[in-house]
């Protein structure tokens, strides 16, 4: 598969994965809802196409795209979202914590801005080991107001670490616009720490890939961190709860305009129609399999609810004092 086809396939996979996941939310099969990535697929696809399997990423609450683009198995991913023991995290993490350490995916994260320092620490570990691995941290426009992330820019720049910061500017942090939230510009924040920063069209996977390739090459060569601001539009809700509790913060015209630049079409028209249709069909089959697998998979045994609480296997006391007799 050509690079362009690969980009399209990844995006198509994410798009359809999200659409199927939303159906499963509405059907009550995915509890807690999800933060749909629809509209931003080109960012995950473009960046991850510049990465190796052993490179590391950290993701966000809106993480499905990154996790899939970095190579996690969509089948086990969907099993995770539906809370099955066959899921990537054994059903322990769900949408906001999906991780696949075998693929360098250090997890989605429920706390905005939290992944940056984690990725930067992983990048440092690579340097310490003498490896040329890089780490990428994805985050939203809301995250550039988080202190820990700003602190992290300093550490990354100071120590010239191979980390790529990818800010997905979708114009909103939930309901708050970037203009209401960000004084100055987003790229200026990185530049203030001496981190080279570029702004790219986050609806164009090829453009994102180009920028990411530069940044990754610089990182591998010891040139330090980079920053990419990728602008895109979030087509769907901040979170699927919006599907019920319709909150108004985006004008219909704005949404329509945003949706008109569909990253799948932008890349799709670069492919010939048959190839595109073939990929679409493949993805469809894969997702049918994923849904079937997820819904057929066993639910985890409540007796193991706190399995893995400690890596060492330590077991704390339970909540009902079952040890009473034993100890007394």
């Amino acid at each position, binding site marked *: 598969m050509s690079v362009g086809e690969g980009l399209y396939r990844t995006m198509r996979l994410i798009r359809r994965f999200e659409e199927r996941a939303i159906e499963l939310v509405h059907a009550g099969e*995915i*509890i*807690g*809802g999800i933060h749909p990535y629809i509209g931003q697929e080109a960012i995950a696809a473009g960046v991850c196409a510049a990465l190796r399997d052993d490179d590391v990423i950290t993701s966000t609450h809106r993480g499905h795209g990154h996790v899939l683009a970095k190579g996690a198995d969509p089948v086990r991913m969907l099993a*995770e979202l539906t*809370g*099955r*023991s066959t899921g990537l*995290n054994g*059903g*322990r*993490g*769900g*949408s*906001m*914590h999906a991780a696949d350490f075998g693929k360098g995916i250090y997890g989605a*994260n*429920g*706390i*905005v*801005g939290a992944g940056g320092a984690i990725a930067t620490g992983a990048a440092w570990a690579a340097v310490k080991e003498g490896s040329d691995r890089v780490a990428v941290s994805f985050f939203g426009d*809301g*995250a550039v*107001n*988080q*202190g820990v992330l700003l602190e992290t820019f300093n550490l990354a720049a100071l120590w010239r670490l191979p980390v790529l910061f990818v800010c997905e500017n979708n114009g909103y*942090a*939930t*309901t*708050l616009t970037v203009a*209401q*939230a*960000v004084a100055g510009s987003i790229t200026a924040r990185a530049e203030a720490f001496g981190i080279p920063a570029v702004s790219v069209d986050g609806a164009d996977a090829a453009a994102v890939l180009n920028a990411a390739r530069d940044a990754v090459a610089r990182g591998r060569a010891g040139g330090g961190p980079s920053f990419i601001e990728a602008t895109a539009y979030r087509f769907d809700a901040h979170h699927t709860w919006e599907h019920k*509790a319709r*909150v*108004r*913060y985006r004008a219909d015209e704005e949404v329509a305009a945003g949706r008109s630049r569909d990253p799948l079409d932008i890349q799709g028209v670069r492919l010939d129609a048959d190839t595109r249709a073939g990929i679409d069909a493949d993805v469809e089959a894969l997702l049918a399999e994923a849904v079937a697998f997820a819904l057929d998979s066993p*639910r*985890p*045994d*409540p*007796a*193991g*609810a*706190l399995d893995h*609480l*400690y890596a060492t296997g330590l077991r*704390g*006391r*339970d*909540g*009902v*004092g079952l040890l*009473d007799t034993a100890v007394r």
Partner: protein
Amino acid sequence: MARLSYLKALQRALADEMARDSSVCVLGEDIGVGVNNVTTGLLAKHGPLRVVDTPLSEQAFTSFATGAALAGQRPVIEFQIPSLLFLVFEQIANQAHKFSLMTGGQAKVPVTYFVPGSGSRSGWAGQHSDHPYGLFAHVGVKTVVPATPEDAYGLFLTAIRDDDPVVLFAPAGSLGVRGDVDLAALGPVPLGVGRVHREGTDVTVVAVGHLVQAALAVAEQLADQISVEVFDPRTLYPFDWDGLAASVAKTGRLVVIDDSNRMCGIAGEILATAAEQMRLTVPPKRVTRPDGAVLPFARELDLAVQPQQDQLLTAVQEVYKSSR
């Protein structure tokens, strides 16, 4: 009498207090639109100088509120997730809480921090399901967990009027609770005064937040065998030790149900204080989350980690049957 939900009671308390006192202002994320349905309509009514939609800078806006409070304002901050209180723990425990003593009484910090939807909201997983009220009680920040609509109203009002920092947890499991209330009679509820929801003579059950409903259900279930008194502390710190002592003096038996981690939690404190200071006729029990619990995502696992009504029932029966 009107039917009032817990969530609407919070909304009403904030609206009333903002209307009454122009130094009251509210800060938080998405509060203009009001995604959590507590701040609904306030921006339109009071404008952006009193309803401040903040960027995702919890630490800064928390200490910003401290500064505003020191300068005479009475800020209220909405946090979308209980674990965001971890993020601002320094700002609350080390700054806001310490100003009064460290300045020798020159300063006061009347800020209210509230979380609409604390504890598990099934399916929100490990980082969105904490119940960290014990942390605030330990450091000595006033800590409030209302269980009913009228207490949600009254305690929120009191928290806002209090001259010290106060953290209010509104458990996710409580937001939908409805009650028949006399709207005209709604008013402040003092901190540090518990409430006996049901009288009984055999076993005192202390229940925190949304578990008050579970305790009442258990009391009802057991009504023909065991007379259960249901005590709702309402504020965890300061705690109504006298109220609890009066109940335990009657029953001599104590069970606590609390949706936070066992170790060093509020349930442990209640047992400890009772053991030190009250006349327990048999060993007390607590039903809590396990030690160090992190709530797993899958529904079965999530539920398995939270204290359950049937566990409380068993504990009450055991305590009732046991003897030294």
